[in-house]
């Protein structure tokens, strides 16, 4: 498991690479990343109305462009936006915190990096972020990203507890436990959260199956193993099973109305993060 500083640094780098500005511009019109307009004046990005200057307003709130047109001073008010909540969850299984090559990040670390990067972006946009089944509630503001980073590394919740209120959920795993298991596991969550993202992260070895010869396979975190006399003979079968698994996962996501993002750890994390961002923006717009 990576250290919190590395995780934070990686995520910051990633967050800087993501098109934050484009997000804000997008938020201004069609796809709204989470903050929802509340149809009244308040703190927000959108213009709401100009109103007359009153004695209680601070001088720097005066909109000079508007005021210059007449003799009166105007104050520009924006529409009140309240933050939306995005909740994250990573699979704590040993098989997920695993990498085929010691030089490469584990799948869980990749998931944490991507999620934290998005968390940083969301926190910057004033959204509420937190952990599903986390020990503390979702938080907002500058320290939210720090808290998320700590929680991502410390949490080891096996179960996924549905949040009390509506939220966007991001669930990261390799989903190798079988579609049915996952359907059952995600059902309570799907009831609460209308939208969410399944972040399926896999190792390249799991796609390529580059084994040959007499090989004893074992699952990380389990003592059971399986011996194949000639591993290359089961490769085709394995690849078929893999494709079927992915198809089933896609179906599960569609069924729940969630998005599925497939990411491999030999791809750049930017790619995964961008895909996740697009998915979140899509759901944010519908909200």
């Amino acid at each position: 498991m990576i250290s919190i500083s590395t995780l934070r640094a990686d995520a910051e780098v990633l967050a800087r690479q993501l098109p934050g500005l484009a997000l804000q511009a997008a938020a201004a019109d069609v796809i709204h990343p989470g903050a929802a307009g509340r149809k009244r004046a308040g703190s927000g990005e959108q213009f709401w109305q100009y109103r007359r200057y009153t004695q209680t307003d601070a001088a720097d709130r005066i909109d000079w462009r508007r005021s210059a047109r007449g003799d009166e001073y105007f104050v520009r008010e924006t529409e009140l936006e309240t933050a939306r909540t995005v909740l994250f969850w990573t699979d704590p299984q040993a098989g997920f915190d695993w990498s085929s090559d010691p030089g490469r990040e584990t799948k869980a670390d990749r998931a944490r990096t991507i999620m934290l990067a998005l968390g940083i972006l969301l926190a910057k946009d004033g959204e509420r972020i937190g952990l599903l089944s986390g020990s503390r509630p979702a938080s907002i503001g500058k320290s939210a990203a720090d808290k998320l980073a700590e929680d991502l590394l410390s949490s080891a919740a096996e179960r996924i507890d549905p949040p009390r209120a509506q939220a966007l959920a991001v669930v990261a795993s390799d989903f190798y436990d079988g579609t049915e298991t996952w359907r059952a596991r995600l059902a309570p969550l799907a009831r609460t959260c209308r939208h969410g993202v399944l972040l399926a992260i896999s190792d390249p070895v799991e796609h390529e199956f580059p084994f040959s010869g007499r090989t004893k396979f074992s699952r990380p975190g389990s003592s059971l193993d399986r011996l194949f006399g000639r591993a290359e003979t089961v490769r085709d079968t394995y690849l078929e099973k893999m494709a079927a698994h992915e198809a089933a996962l896609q179906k599960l996501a569609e069924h729940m109305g969630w998005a599925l993002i497939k990411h491999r750890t030999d791809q750049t994390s930017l790619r995964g993060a961008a895909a996740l961002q697009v998915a979140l923006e899509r759901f944010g717009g519908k909200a």
Partner: protein
Amino acid sequence: MTFGPFLFMAPLTLLGLIALPIIWIILRATPPSPKAAQLPSLRLLENVDAKEETPARTPWWILLLRLGAAALAILGLAAPIYAPGAQQSETSDGPVLVVIDDGWTSAQRWGEVRAAALSALDGEARDTPAHMLLTAPRSLNVDPNERLSRAAFEARIRSLQAQPWAVDRETALARLDESGLRPSRILWLTDGLDPDSAAPFARSLLSKAPLSIFAARARGPLALTRLNADARGVTLMATRAETIRASEHFLSALTLDGAALATAELRFEAGQSTASATFALPPAALSQIARFQVTGSATAGTVWLWDSADRTRRIGVVSGDSTAQPLLSDIHYVRKALEPFATISDGELTDLIDENPDAIILTDIGQIDPQARAAISNWIEQGGALIRFAGPRMAGPQTESAVDDLVPAPLRRSSRAIGGTLTWEEPQPLGDFPEASPFAGLTPPDDIRVRQQVLARPGPELARRTWARLADGSPLVTADRRGQGTLILFHVTAGPDWSDLPYAGVFVDMLRRSIAAGRGEAISDEEGLYSPSLTLNAAGGLTQPSAGATPLRASDFGTVIPSEEHPPGLYQGPAGTRALNVAAEYTATAMTDWPSGARLLGDAEARTIRLGGLLLAAAIALLCLDLIVALGLAGRLPALQRAVAAGLVITLTGSLALPGDSAAQSGFQRFTDDIGDKETAAALDMRLAYIETGDARADRATKAGLEGLSLVLFRRSSVEPAAPHAVDPETDALDVYPVIFLALPDTPEPLSETAMARLNAYMRNGGALFIDTRRGGEIGAGNSFDDLDRVLAGLDTPPLAPVPQDHVLTRSYYLLQSFQGRYANRNLWIEATGAADKTERRGDGVSRLFVGDADYLAAWAIDERGRPIYSVDGGDTQREMSIRFGVNLIIYILTGNYKEDQVHVPALLERLGEDDGVGDFDLDEDVIP
């Protein structure tokens, strides 16, 4: 235990072979272990059955491989020896012939040889008569026909000694044939060396009767074979018979009475049959040494007697001229000729006499004061060799009161010049050396011409005293004996002024032979008879010569083979002692090719082959093979192959890419050649140099400055310097640089004494030193040269003066009014030219020392793109002026006062009356073409 031709040293180990079937069963039972892999997505394969399983049994050929390895290991541990000669032989009861190599090579293990000889009549052969054949030749040889009873044989053998000379097996065999003896068996006790003679000898013996061979080959160093002496010490070469293992021994240097003066390490490397040991001793100690000996092993071969002929001579040199330019000095040639062979000391004549050297060389000393003359005469009488060279002073007029009697023959007080414009004669080549001269045997070179010489007055003695003459018969070298010593006069100078002789190789030999004339040696060397004074016995001891030892002609040394008549030892003759060493130029070769029919005892068994190591190695090789196979089976090998392939690709592409890279290098930066031997690089290309002060900033500025100046020189003048070098005045060769820059940092460290001495020598020999204190910009710093005394303590500084207005430095390339650096209007100090005596001016009056404080180097400094680095007081104009000064400086340093005439051009033109336009010549700052 023997098993056919095989002999097992540890036969019980063979019981391990019983275990082989068990190993077989175990190996069959264990399949190779699979490789392990982790796969989180294994759950996908939960319901899949593997179609094919690995055979649970190891393939038969792997079994065979492993069983073979085990069997080989067991056999190897049983230490088998292949010894075809080890079969038991039958003893017969006929007469036995005992052949003994009793040369010096047997001396080291003579006790064993003797014991083996005594055992010849042991056992069943108790009462058979014995015959003896000794292979070292003697004047009275033992008759092989002589029948010896057991008691007589024992007595004879016990009194038998090895001889200090070599064996001669051919004549011994001839003696045996002559005697007609028919032995029923032969025992040959040999030194096991020299297969050239030993192999046919053994075959001949075998053809006569069954042969047993006992070889006692000398262990460790067998002989000292050569000695090289030079000024640094003495090097001895040693040889040995066995070459397999590395071994270490020691050599002792002993005085005549046996006291050890020094020891040196003698190390034979594995596989080498020769080694050398060096004694680095001062000459005084070397002269005490009489012999060298391998410590702990004394035979005639391991003792090297050292005669006086090749000892390093001690020579004193007194020079008449005191020029500061070494290459023009006479003494330089003498020194160069003798340095490899002699220890040279110089000084005042009287001091040198006190040192009592072997020879004293005087070059062109005209007058010797009476006191010194008496001392030197006395020294010659006691055996010194005084070698004098003629010269202008000797040829000069002399007062009657001080007639120089230190010449072999009276001289005419004028020199004879041959081949000048006012003479009819051609310069003379050397004639043949007279027969009686010590130079006889040298070949006079054809291309030597003598242009001037002093002449001896003709006299009856002159012909006898002449050692060398010119082609026209006039003496070139004369010599006269005074007491035990010799007085030798070369009628030319020791330098090339009067003749080409100093250029010739024969000059070295002539000098060496002249020096050897001291101490009463080497006169008519070839004539003398040398009688043995002390001889070596086989055990390496010095003894009185036996009656059979006869005198030896001097000319025979080096060719005579030591024998009973001429045993190795010291020979006394007219020219001192000469040594005859038995092992000189000896090469030890071990005999290995013993005839197959012979029975081998002692070291001859060495033909047997110990197979244990070979078998174990084979077992390990099989195991390695097994490992590779096992890796291959487990599927690890493809990775290995990929790694090898990748390595190959990288190597190939790397080697292909390199030439392209180097060809691609070009552009502004042409200073890329600072790799390799710095000294060679500096000698091959003219380049500027600077002294690193240790202050990184100052050094960087200096380097950049010199690079800038080099570039400007390259572009503007025909001076094309290579990249500047940083030099360490303590270690680097300075003479290869025309000029060395020293820019002092803000807090300079004083230079070491060595560095100052070498800088002084550098300037004396014509090098230029440019010192920049870089203090010119400090306002109110007072004298910016204050610190120089401390930093450059001991620098040989002539009187300095600011550069005069009409100095060559203002004209050497550009016309300059002042010398600008980074700071304007600072004075540059150079050697004051007003030295009273022109001869005292160094380097033709060209200043060798430049001292300034205007930080010139910073003004010249450029970065790697050719842009100036540092700001300059007066902007670009002053920078340009500063660079022009730099060009002027280098041109001045390189051309000296060549441009001095140019300084006078205005005056000359004025004197010629051509006034037009001459007046503003001075002010025109253009290049003088």
